[in-house]
Every structure is written in structure tokens, then in C-alpha cells.
């Protein structure tokens, strides 16, 4: 099964860089063979192709209102879609992407999509935990209790 971890955010904005710190941490590790690690950055709707190749996709992104500051949460596909307004904008993020995917997918739709969310400013320990959870989910272990 194809597996990918896609980290989203802007490393030049303090409130939005946690997922890219996860990316940096993972990039410095020896990853399991075949696992794709992507810096999704600000690509928004242009991330669609990553969801049209089947397999399991783990997004890592900043979240707001899901948990206490400096915590990691795991959000499933339905909850991601529910967090959206259904409107497209320059700020369109994962909810819009997930909501529109079934209608526009031209390849093989990702079978499993999970979001590893980072709430607020995150410590190095939280970044490391998010990286470990992302890897565990990507490798099929499901969210660890971490």
C-alpha cells in the first residue's frame, strides 16, 4: 500500500510552522522503505494529486480548538470535512480538499486519510510525539497511545 506523510504549513509564520518542524524531524530520520514524505507547504487545493494515488495519506497540520495548547490530536476524514464551511477561498485547507475530492478525483482515491493535528505553539517534545504518531499511522499501526 502506498503511504505518504504530508506536512502542511508555513515555516516563516510562528503559528503555522509546527507541522513543518515535524517534517524537518522526519526528514532527518531513516524512514521505512516506500514511505513518501512531502512538504505540502501552502499548496492548498493543489495538494489534490496526493490524494488521487490511492493508499494511506497522513496529513500533519496545525489545528485550533481541538485540544489544549501544545497537544497532538488525531482527526479522521469525517471530522476534517465537518470542520469546513464548504466554501473555497485562498485559505481553503484540508476540509475543502477532503470535501471536494470525491467529485474531482481522477485517479485512485486515497483509501485512508488521517490528520495529525498540532494545537497552538508546540514544544520539541510535542513535535517529536507528532512525528512518531504520524509514522505509526502511516505504517498502519493506527494512532499510538503516546
Amino acid at each position, binding site marked *: 500500500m502506498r503511504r505518504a506523510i504530508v506536512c502542511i504549513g508555513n515555516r516563516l509564520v510562528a503559528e503555522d510552522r509546527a507541522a513543518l518542524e515535524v517534517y524537518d524531524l522526519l526528514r532527518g530520520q531513516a524512514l521505512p522503505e516506500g514511505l513518501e514524505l512531502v512538504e505540502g507547504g501552502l499548496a492548498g487545493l493543489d495538494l489534490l494529486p496526493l490524494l488521487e494515488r490511492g493508499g494511506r495519506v497522513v496529513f500533519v497540520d496545525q489545528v485550533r480548538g481541538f485540544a489544549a495548547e501544545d497537544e497532538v490530536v488525531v482527526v479522521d476524514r469525517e471530522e476534517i470535512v465537518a470542520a469546513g464551511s464548504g466554501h473555497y477561498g485562498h485559505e481553503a485547507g484540508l*476540509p475543502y480538499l477532503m470535501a471536494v475530492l470525491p*467529485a474531482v478525483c481522477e485517479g485512485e482515491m486515497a483509501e485512508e486519510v488521517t490528520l495529525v493535528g498540532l494545537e497552538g505553539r508546540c514544544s520539541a517534545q510535542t513535535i517529536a510525539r507528532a512525528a512518531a504518531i504520524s509514522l505509526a499511522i502511516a505504517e498502519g499501526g493506527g494512532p499510538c497511545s503516546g
Partner: protein
Amino acid sequence: MVRGIKEINIPINRAEGDLEVNVEVEEGVVREAWSVGTLYRGFEAMMQGRGALDGLVMTPRVCGICSITHLNAAAEALDRIAGVTPPDNACRLRNLALMAETVQSDVRQSVLMFMADFANSGAYGEHSLAAEARARFQPLEGRLAVEVIRESKRLVQVIAIIGGQWPHTSFMVPGGVTAIPDVAKLLQSRIIVEGFRSWYESAILGCSIERWQEIQSLADLDAWLAESERHREATVGFFLRFCREAGLDRLGRGPNRYLSYGNLPLPEETAVQGSDGRLLPAGYAVATTVLPFDPQQISEDVSHSWYEQGGGPRHPYVGATKPYASGQSGRLYSWVKAPRYGGEVVETGPLAEKVVAGDPLFVSLVENGGPNVMVRQLARLVRPAALLAPMTRWLEETASHAGDSFYRSVSGIPDGSGAGLLQAARGALGHWVTVQDEKIVSYQIITPTAWNGSPRDEKGRRGAWEEALIGTPLPDVNNPVQAGHVIRSFDPCLVCAVHCLTRGGGGSGRRRPR
């Protein structure tokens, strides 16, 4: 007598996480407007002291929608400082990436952001085209809303092929480009562009690009609309009919002054025609009278912005970005500065490009009731018609000159100043850079939205869309869709930096650049 003045804040959803527009409404009409950028980004401060080339990596992160444009502006500024002109192939590839980004943005903004409001039942339940508008543009469901995503996402492949990497390519460097696509990839890109063109002609124009370009005046446009069912039912025809019945051809006049930096430099050897060495000429227009563009006429005024005060408007080479949000509560109201050209308020964007280029149709439309929301948005919706054929030609030319150079050697960035000025999807974008000892001494960016969404200046003159909002009827202040039309016709882009999933809906909240 107490007049019924109501102050409301209009959330500009589908445009901004950090843009607010406050308006004063009297008897159902906007009498005053203030455009408020609510987040300081400070890219200029971030750049100081960094390596001369760092702008190539950092400034594309200003914006997720138009990162190629920022890369292009950063590279052009360094070209100027280094005194180098990129070879023809580099010129073509830079142009192609920027054009792909622009075309994608134009169709997405038009259908997913602007025309999504046509499906607003509260505002347009009585419109004779309401049911069809919902069938086409309802978010996530409308057939065109879905189709435009499916078609426009293929253009990213062109950027990825040309950029050699996606996302976050930094393939433009002073002297040229670093990624050299092979001929097979160039031909693949041509197939993508031609496929998009076929869809664009069928679904958006309802005719061939050549037929569309025969339209030279308002009378021609009306004749084209009456000519066939296909013209009326395709997106442009539907857009015109909907706008006219809704009165969008009478809303959102704005300053009626236009600025275009010009863009898309022509290779020395090319079959593509332009003027002054570019596909899009530079210029400043007062109504439809076009004057030469003089970069020295650009200044930034901070008299109503949360920056250190004093010294009056400054050219970006000598400007500063020093946040100072204390005191003067009420007079200062935005983190956006107020750019001015020759001291005047101007608008920029596709309509400005058309007027400055002397496009006969848009000159005619401006002279016959324009500028307005309909004309401004039409310019964006049909801009790809002028870009798709040159894209195909430049892909062919690059493939046929694949053995030629893509880069002229630049051994280092000398001390000096340079500006990268070009037309982004949303209008005039400028990067002004000064380098000393291979370090950035100053870096000033003026985005298109700073021009269009500026606050007032030292003379108290409103910014472009602040001005355009005056007189806008708001029959329902709880559903101020008319004000949204005015602002969205400028295609604001203050966001594109921070985004996160927010529990409870309402979308995500990326924050604005700058």
C-alpha cells in the same frame, strides 16, 4: 432629525482570514468604508541581513496562491542588481510558470469565489437565473464548481515540470533557471495546456479564443451574446446576463485610474507578439488615457497604518517597515500601507492590464459605464484567452531550442539595488531589494492587494476598494453580498500564509502576507 446610520463589519469569507471591511450604512447605502488588514507579517524585516539569494526561497512563502509570482519578482530584482539578462529559454520558462499560475487563479477565483455568490439564495432568490446559478456555482456541488477544480488542477503539472519540483520550487535564479525539462516533458506540458484551452473555450467562453478576440467593443459584445445559444449559456455569457440583471454593471466604480507594471518579457527570438518587449505593456492610465509608467512615481504612505510615523510618503527603496501600533487609536487602522502612484489612488489587476494595453473591448466597456464590478471581473474571467496561445507557442519554442542555454552565469550578487516589477494574477507586484556585501540591506514588497486594499493616505483619500464601496446598496446588512461583490471583483489576497483546521466549521484561517 436622527439619521439611520449603521456601522457594520463585513466578514469577507472566501477571501480573507485577516481582512475586515467596516462600512457605515445610511438608508441602505454604504456611505463610508474602511479596509482593515489585521495581521502584521513583516517579511521585509525578516529579510534584512540575510544572504542576497534568500529572497528566492523565502518570498514564495508570502503567498500560497501566487508563490511563483513572488519567486519571479525576487529573481528579477536580483537580475537587475547582477546586470544579467536571462537567455531566451529561461525567459520562456519563467513566463510559462507564471502564466500557468495566473490562468489557474483566474478560473478558480471567478467560479469558486466570485460566482459562488450567485448561488446566494438570500440575495438572489428572485433573480430569473437563480436556479441555474445554484446548479452551476453551488459550492462543492455546482457542476462548474466541480469542473473548474478538475480542469485547473492539471495546470499544476506544468509548474511542476517547469520548476523541476513541486511544491515550493525555487527554480528561478539570477541569470535564468535551474531546472531544464526534457523535450518529452515540454510536449507533455503542451498537451496539458491544449487540453485546458479546449475546456476553457467550451465551458468558459462558449466559442474559440479567436472568435472571442474579434470582440472589439460593447456593441460587439452584445452582438456576440445575441449570436448563439452557446454564447449565452457558456460561463461568460451567463455571467454577463446574471450581472446585468443584478445590477453589477452599476456597482463598484473605484478610482478609475489604473496601474500595470507590465509583464512576460519577450524572448529575443519568438513568434509571440507584444509591445515594448513584453506581452503585457506597463503603463498608468487615467480613465482610458494611457501614460508611460515611471517606477519613481511609486510611494508608500503610512499615515493611516500601524507603522512608525513621520517623513511622509516614501519610495520603496527608502521606505521602512517598522510596526508601531500604539496610540493614535482610530486614525491608524490597518497593517497594510497605502501605496500611491504619483500621489494618486489607483487600482491594479486584469482590468488595469487591459486598459493599459489599450484592449479595445475593455476600453469600450470602461468608456460606456465602467469601471464596475462586472467589467473588472470579466477582465479576469477572459484573461486566459490572451495567455493560452502564447503558452503553447513558448512551449513549442523551448522544445525546438532545447539545446540552447537556460542560464547565464552569475558569479555573485554585487552591491546595488534592483526591483522586480511584474503583473501577478491580482495585479502589480514589486520587490525592491538592496544588497551590500552579499547581504540584504533592505527588502520592500508591495503586493497587488496593498494597492487595491490600501487604507487612506495623508490627504485622507480612500484606497481603491474603499472608494469602490461608496454608494453600494446593502438592502440586507445581514447578507451584504453586494459589498462582497465589490471587494471580490478586486480579488483580494491578504491571506495565504497561516492556515489551520478550526473546530466548529467556518473554514480555516490562513493569515495574510506581509
